[in-house]
């Protein structure tokens, strides 16, 4: 059972993902090799203040969008 292993299910950039439970948004970004200062996070349709990345825990069932700037006109 995933619950016993401490994993949670999230929808991350449109894809279902199983990730370890209990981690902060900051932890998640670092685990994905991302530099938190270059990423904007939308959690359940709410933009998350970057200063709060370390204190906000990713919860089971969260919908997360991680966006950044790319080339465009």
């Amino acid at each position, binding site marked *: 059972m995933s619950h016993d292993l401490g994993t949670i299910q999230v929808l991350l950039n449109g894809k279902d993902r199983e990730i370890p439970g209990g981690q902060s948004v900051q932890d998640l970004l670092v685990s994905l090799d991302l530099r938190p200062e270059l990423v904007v996070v939308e959690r359940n349709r709410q*933009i998350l203040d970057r200063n709060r990345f370390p204190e906000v825990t990713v919860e089971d069932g969260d919908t997360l969008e*991680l966006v*950044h700037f790319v080339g*465009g*006109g």
Partner: protein
Amino acid sequence: MTQDTPFVIAGREFGSRLIVGTGKYETNQVMVDAIRASGADMVTVAVRRVDLDRTKEEGILHHLDPKEFFLLPNTAGCYTAEDAIRYARLARAAGFSDFLKLEVIGDERTLVPDVAATLEAARILVDEGFKVMAYTNDDLVTALRLEDAGCAAVMPLASPIGSGLGVVNPFFIREIKRRLEVPVIVDAGVGTASDACITMEQGVDAVLMNTAIAAADDPVAMAEAMKLGTRAGRLAFLAGRMEAREIAVPSSPTEGMLA
């Protein structure tokens, strides 16, 4: 010599009247070299999902220093006011500025804007404190409404995005410039340096382009050509051109000819 006035948007002065995009370059190095050659100090960027399978190579800020270039995020790819507002808020949360290139597309084939949705989004975003630079078509009434809505700049197209057709409606570009107080920036459709020059000769404040540079065989050379074209057009506008006439007038004296 005629002196130019500073180019100011929402109280912020920019050194170049050429604004360039950062999309469609073959490599990031060519992009950076081309932008430097263009002399632009404002560059547009798009907001997209991080590709979680290749996080290392992605993200334009790994290549472009926001201290060197002023970033103008866009809402490209949005087809509704609601989507554009969502992208705008995400862009601002990146923490660079309140400036935004608002773009709400209405038609997939021509990429012409949905002006009703653009106006709706502009009103809301202006209320939220954004400095909205609105991409629009070459319609005077829409341009006036966008100014009324509080946009910091109005950006009519020269011709469809990525088409390279140049200025298809110079009369209305001039009329929009004549009638608006806020800066008018022609955005989209420029194909080559003469287009940039012709655009600036209409008297607009600036020109914004991406594909014309990125899709050239040598983007860095084209970027420099665009810099010169933009500057030439601006100077020609300030200089005040001679009247065109459909009859020849000799340039050399008609007196003093040999018998």
